[in-house]
């Protein structure tokens, strides 16, 4: 008996010791990214991570990266112009963009323009499909896109320089530096992209008029380890861009649009026992200027300053149970030429739970409630399970309620803003099946989303005003596939996605315009020693352009592919030179009717790592 007791004690002690060891490593894991919920509470949903090697091979815009590598469908008003995603058949305002855990969708129009984010500033970009409002707030209905800057406390000094130049005088420069030791970690990245963007259309004797753009972004991340249990981190991002909006006819008035966005966040993480505490302060500004005539200085503008205070406390109740509360206070101060100057305050509290019942079965749940006097705020929730039924098959189930809140434009546009709006809200459910084999992963997900109180602007007399009118029902299936194989020095990698999407107007039962039933992407990469070739394609099925689904006016399906070839000349460092042919088969295509996209064009790049 005594022996048994002693043995037990010993075991306990060893376990404690082992756990403590585990903790300090875990701290560093926790410290690495700010958005810990993405890792901890996304087990019952489909999550796709795009690594820096994928980011580097793709074109600089977020539109292009996600268009060729995910199930998200894009409408682009000509290359580089306003770009609206449709994730699982939803609207652009129903996809949330999350920067280091903070929702950065515009407070003015509710969406993120995917041509105003420079992808090369980020180590990785993660696409989380399905509902996430109970964690990430407004807009996480179709899904959310996460940008994370990672901080590592190891001895490192690296530099990355990438330059590219191609057709239509398109160029890009990106420089990244990373300096860190066990106490400090610092990263900076600066990107400049620009293009004359005056491409000729494939079958029509015309070219893209007034499509030129440029943008510059600066990202810095700084981390300081105060001691083993306390860390300070600072994230910063500036984006400055100008786009001319292309015109269809030379006689149209030419317009341009400027964006200036800043994002800064300070975080203090501390670890004590089973608690992880994160205090965050963030300040975001967004500003646009719209020049209704490029020959005139007169313009309209809008700007919103956002201040966020957040307290995030995670508690490991046991090895199997994790609890996390997040209390958030957000203040938005908006003003502009067309909106009423307003200040809005939103408080929110969320509670998240993950319970790993066995090694193969876990469930997670979250609830969130916002308190504000700007709109009626529903109780948001999510509940899901992850069950590894066999070594190669995992079943995921998730159900959630999500919302998209009215924006400053919806509420305060002058004239027409409506201060009595409800948020758009959704109930949704999904079933995910993941199969893991040796070199091969496939995930199959089916989902259904019922969206109510869709906001729509309709004219009342001469004034447009938003209303909660429509209902939309969306359902579909997604397949993600990944395969890797190495024979000696030959590496093959194949990625593929396919989405089948039905998104119906609740009243007419017609498919929404500009939502394709079918979308597929694939990329095949082959490398031999320092030589690599890549091929990728994008297939978009035909879309309706008329609300009555009159197929006479459908926008044709298109199949566009890109190919690239690269060679690394470096001995110890990497000096990679690459050449890309975009739209290899010179497909004549448009994602928005009449807004033709470029035919075959070329691009070359040089990447230096030192």
């Amino acid at each position: 008996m005594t022996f048994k007791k002693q043995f037990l004690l010993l075991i306990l002690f060893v376990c404690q010791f082992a756990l403590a060891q585990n903790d300090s490593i875990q701290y560093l894991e926790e410290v690495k990214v700010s958005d810990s919920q993405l890792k901890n509470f996304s087990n019952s949903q489909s999550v796709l991570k795009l690594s820096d090697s994928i980011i580097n091979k793709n074109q600089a815009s977020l539109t292009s990266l996600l268009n060729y590598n995910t199930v998200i469908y894009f409408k682009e008003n000509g290359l580089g112009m306003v770009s609206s995603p449709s994730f699982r058949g939803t609207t652009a305002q129903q996809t949330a963009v999350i920067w280091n855990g903070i929702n950065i969708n515009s407070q003015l129009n509710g969406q993120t323009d995917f041509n105003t984010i420079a992808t090369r500033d980020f180590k990785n970009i993660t696409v989380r499909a399905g509902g996430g409002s109970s964690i990430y707030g407004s807009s996480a209905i179709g899904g959310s896109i996460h940008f994370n800057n990672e901080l590592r406390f190891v001895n490192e000094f690296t530099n990355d320089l990438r330059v590219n130049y191609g057709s239509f005088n398109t160029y890009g420069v990106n420089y990244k530096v990373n300096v860190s030791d066990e106490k400090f970690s610092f990263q900076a990245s600066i990107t400049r992209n620009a293009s004359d963007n005056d491409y000729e259309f494939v079958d029509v004797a015309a070219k893209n008029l007034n499509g030129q753009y440029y943008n510059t972004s600066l990202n810095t991340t700084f981390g300081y380890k105060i001691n083993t249990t306390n860390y300070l981190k600072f994230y910063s991002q500036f984006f400055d861009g100008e786009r001319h909006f292309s015109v269809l006819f030379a006689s149209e008035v030419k317009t341009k649009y400027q964006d200036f966005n800043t994002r800064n966040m300070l975080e203090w993480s501390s670890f004590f026992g089973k608690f992880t505490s994160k205090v965050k302060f963030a300040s975001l500004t967004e500003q646009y200027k719209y020049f209704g005539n490029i020959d005139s200085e007169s313009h309209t503008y809008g700007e919103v300053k956002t201040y966020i205070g957040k307290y995030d406390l995670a508690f490991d109740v046991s090895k199997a149970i994790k609890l996390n509360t997040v209390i958030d206070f957000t203040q938005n101060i908006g003003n502009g030429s067309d909106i009423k100057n307003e200040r809005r305050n939103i408080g929110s509290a969320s509670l998240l739970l993950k319970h790993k019942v066995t090694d193969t079965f876990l469930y997670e749940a979250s609830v969130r409630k916002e308190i504000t006097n700007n709109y009626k705020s529903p109780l948001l929730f999510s509940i899901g399970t992850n069950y590894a039924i066999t070594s190669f098959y995992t079943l995921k189930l998730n159900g959630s309620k999500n919302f998209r809140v009215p924006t400053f434009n919806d509420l305060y546009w002058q004239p027409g803003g409506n201060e009595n709006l409800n948020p758009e809200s959704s109930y949704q459910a999904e079933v995910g099946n993941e199969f893991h084999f040796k070199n091969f992963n496939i995930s199959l997900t089916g989902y259904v989303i019922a969206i109510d109180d869709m906001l729509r602007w309709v004219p009342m007399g001469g004034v447009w005003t938003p209303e909660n009118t429509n209902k939309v029902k969306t359902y579909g299936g997604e397949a993600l596939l990944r395969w890797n194989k190495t024979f000696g020095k030959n590496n093959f990698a194949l990625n593929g996605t396919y989405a089948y999407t039905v998104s119906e107007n609740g009243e007419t039962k017609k498919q929404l315009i500009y939502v394709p039933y079918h979308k597929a992407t694939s990329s095949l990469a082959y490398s031999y020693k320092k030589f690599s070739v890549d091929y990728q394609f994008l297939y978009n099925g035909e879309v309706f352009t008329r609300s009555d689904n009159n197929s006479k006016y459908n926008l044709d399906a298109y199949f566009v592919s890109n190919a690239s070839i690269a060679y690394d000349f470096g001995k110890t460092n990497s000096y990679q030179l690459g050449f890309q042919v975009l739209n290899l088969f010179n497909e004549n295509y448009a994602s928005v009717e009449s807004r033709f996209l470029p035919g075959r064009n070329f691009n070359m790049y040089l990447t230096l790592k030192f």
Partner: protein
Amino acid sequence: MKKLNRIFLLLVATSLFVSCSNDDNGNSDVPLGEYDNGFFVLNEGNSNPSTASVTFISNSGLIEQDVFGNVNPDAVSNGTLLQSVFFDDTRAFIISGGSNKVTVVNRYTFEFIATVATNFASPRYGAVINGKAYVTNYADFAIGTDDFLTVIDLSNYSTSKVALNNWSEKVIEENGKLYIANGFYGSGTSITVFNPANNTPSTPIELGFSPNSLEEEDGTLYVIGDGKLAKINLATNQVIGTAITFPEAQAGAKNLNIENDKIYYTAGTSVFVMDINASTAPTSSLFSYESTSEWGGMYGFAVNDNKIYIAEGGDFTSDSEVYVYSLTGSLLDAFTAGVGPNGFYFND
């Protein structure tokens, strides 16, 4: 949103009336082209050029969509947001508000003649006097003082501008002068008389309300806006008496049309009629029609040759319908036109 009235069809209607008289005198009506003897429906469309089109419906009820595209498959499209059409004896002028241009076609064959694309900024309506076309332009929608006329020389399609310095919308020609309604959703409350002889706008005739449609009959200009009807004596350019105020339920009255000494107008999705000399407005409608459109009910309206024409705007992203009624309000015909039909133009 571009709300329209059909002024020019009235001009055409008048000339039609004359030509009908000629018919009565025994002249045979030999069609001057494929699109003689019927009417056009202008489909405003949305911001996409492929949604903007012209539909032709013949007097025998045959319908042809996208007339311009059918006749001129290689021509550049008419542009976006087709605002209105006006005519001279042989030509039709199609105004694109979104693309700042006017497409000129043969009014009977619809063969492309020219594109006029200079000196426009959100053009609205036009009229022809002595070989010149005059087109009103909003320029900046929020500002009235920058509105102007584009003058097109119809011999060579060269253009010039004349400042109007006032909200400028609908325009009609009468006796060699232009009458321009200075009204835009409550802004602008007058009528400008423009004499092409001296190429300058007159001092505006003040109405006290914002005009949305106007028509001339026997030397008097009739104007509707803000739930009121005013009459102007064109000999003196003075407002006659005080305006008639419509009942509150007809506050949005618009689409003034005069046919056989009766004034027709619409409010909501109802059609009203009153005698041209009546001193008060009717309290009940002639008839109403059912609209499923959120904001495009009664998007186009015309009275011509003892028939009433109504365009249902629809949802502006799909083909919509036009209806033909008798003067007593019975439905005679319904046709599917294009996206956002906004006007009727009679070609006989």
